[in-house]
């Protein structure tokens, strides 16, 4: 299922020394620009305007429960893969007020977020696929979510091919990377001396009109393809095929679930960093005088007791049943509900799990080890 960069692209070439012009073009087109910067030892999306703010000459070491940035000898701006969050917090806010109400006279007022048009620089294939999954959930299901939509409609996406994979990445096996094959407004592929740049929407084209792109050389196009193929070859992990993953449902009593539960802390980090996880919880926060209240939504997790509580009864009362819920829902249940598995191979749940639990290994063990109870 591995994808290469052989897609409909007609890129032009932007020399490295002119990259600032692209940033200027985005800002001058009326967007606030979020770009990858280093903060607290990780790649994070922050508001930027200048190329010097970007995470230059850095690569990332990502292993189970382990993340470190390292200097490279090079000049590249996108040699790392990602930090703990993809696009999820930008559209599905971790914590937000949905509506406010007054008691006297009784009124309910929706609080829509006030969002500026926002361009996001350096989005990876795995995160673009994850956004499409979240779109399907929040926008296309019956009754689109107005809060999500408000943010989503104002995003300008600038994708970038991965020239390397981190050790936790396995997007080649899910078909979501390492090259950008999804819809973007602007696409980028970084080469030694500059960038191949293409537009994928009218908004993206309007930005690129401001630049004076050179014609891409055959050799540059070959380098682009070669890099993503190399990135795919570097990947050490893979997920079983969707039709194999469905069989997780036939192995609900497998002894390995207990072995994972012995290690899993039930902390919920995996779900919080997963760019496709969409569970939330709403709470009523009543003012002390009791005269007004706000309805607040925040990220929940299938690892928390609230997720399966029915009054005094918790359907999933232990870590084993919660981990089993996470893995079976993501890898099997989603196929029916969302039309595909809920994993885009970004590897974040592996990197950011405090004890380094690796879903690819757990899925393998449960599918292929021991006897089938079917």
């Amino acid at each position, binding site marked *: 299922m591995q994808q290469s960069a052989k897609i409909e692209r007609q890129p032009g070439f932007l020399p490295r020394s002119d990259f600032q012009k692209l940033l200027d073009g985005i800002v001058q087109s009326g967007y606030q620009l979020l770009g990858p910067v280093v903060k607290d030892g990780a790649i994070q999306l922050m508001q930027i305007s200048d190329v010097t703010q970007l995470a230059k000459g850095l690569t990332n070491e990502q292993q189970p429960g382990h993340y470190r940035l390292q200097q490279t000898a090079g000049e590249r701006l996108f040699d790392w893969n990602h930090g703990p969050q993809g696009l999820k917090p930008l559209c599905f806010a971790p914590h937000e007020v949905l509506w406010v109400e007054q008691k006297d006279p009784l009124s309910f007022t929706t609080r829509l977020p006030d969002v500026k048009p926002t361009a996001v620089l350096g989005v990876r294939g795995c995160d673009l696929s994850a956004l499409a999954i979240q779109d399907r959930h929040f926008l296309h299901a019956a009754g689109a979510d107005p809060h999500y939509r408000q943010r989503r409609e104002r995003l300008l996406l600038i994708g970038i091919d991965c020239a390397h994979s981190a050790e936790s990445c396995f997007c080649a096996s899910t078909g979501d990377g390492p090259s950008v094959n999804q819809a973007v407004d602007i696409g980028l592929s970084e080469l030694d001396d500059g960038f191949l740049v293409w537009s994928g929407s009218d908004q993206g084209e309007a930005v690129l009109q401001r630049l004076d792109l050179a014609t891409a050389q055959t050799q540059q196009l070959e380098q682009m393809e070669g890099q993503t193929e190399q990135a795919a070859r570097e990947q050490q992990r893979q997920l079983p095929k969707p039709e194999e993953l469905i069989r997780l449902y036939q192995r609900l009593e497998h002894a390995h679930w207990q072995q994972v539960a012995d290690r899993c*802390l039930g902390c*919920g980090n995996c779900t919080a960093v997963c760019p496709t996880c969409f569970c939330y919880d709403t709470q009523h926060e009543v003012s002390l005088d009791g005269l007004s209240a706000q309805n607040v939504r925040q990220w929940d997790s299938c690892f*928390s007791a*609230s997720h399966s509580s029915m009054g005094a009864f918790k359907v999933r009362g232990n870590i084993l049943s919660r981990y089993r819920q996470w893995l079976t829902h993501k890898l099997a249940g989603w196929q029916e509900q969302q039309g595909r598995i809920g994993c885009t191979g970004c590897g974040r749940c592996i990197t950011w799990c405090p004890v380094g639990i690796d879903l690819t290994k757990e899925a393998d063990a449960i599918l292929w080890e021991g006897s089938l109870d079917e």
Partner: protein
Amino acid sequence: MATDKPKLAVHKFSSCDGCQLALLNLGEPLLALPGLVDIVHFAEAGPNSPDQPVDISLVEGSVSTPEDIQRIQQVRQNSKLLVSIGACATSGGLQALANFANRHEWMASIYTDPENIEVLNSSDPISKHVKVDLQIQGCPVNSAQVIGALRDLLSGVAPRPEVHSVCMECKRKGVICTMVTKGEPCMGPVTLAGCGALCPAAGRGCYGCYGPAEQLNDRSIAERFEQLGLDAQAVLRRFRFIANSAAGFKTASEGLRGDTDG
């Protein structure tokens, strides 16, 4: 001044007053409070009628003296609802560390006349001595949680318990994980949310002062701490700290290999 507002008392037992101070630090909501309840007892703030019957008592501190036992029984009798707040009231507090040692030997080595000190053999949560209607963990408590619970009780609804780990607070706030990026031995995954990930936001590992999370896999995190370079004693002390006698942390520390001193 008799009114028909519900009556509130704030009682102190063996504690540092930090939870009362957290309430006093509330700011605006604190000014609204007298509009809703008659605060009949809150020594730290002024009102001082500990023996009046009330609708709700907030209790800070642990029970550690014979006098504390009598007083908490009195408070229970005088209160329709009793809410214990903070690590001391809900688990015995830092002072419960002495539960793991021989406190009489310690006292004899420090004080010239230890026989003048009247203490129980252990520092205990309020719930060990009287029925408690609601517990709010934390050192100190998150005053917004206390106010939220008060509002719910005044409305006659059961407050919703916090159930998430500190990790979920890190992730919602965009705090970068100190364990994964720096190898800090962080108690966040096994600690109940509520503090707003205060320590990780400052770049340190969580100390577990809010007490055990709803699910507590102490063996797995202890093993992880060892991989990160803590020796067995240091791992033990991660559990045996502010919420040392909270049920989950206590059992955890007793099961760890480093448990040599008690």
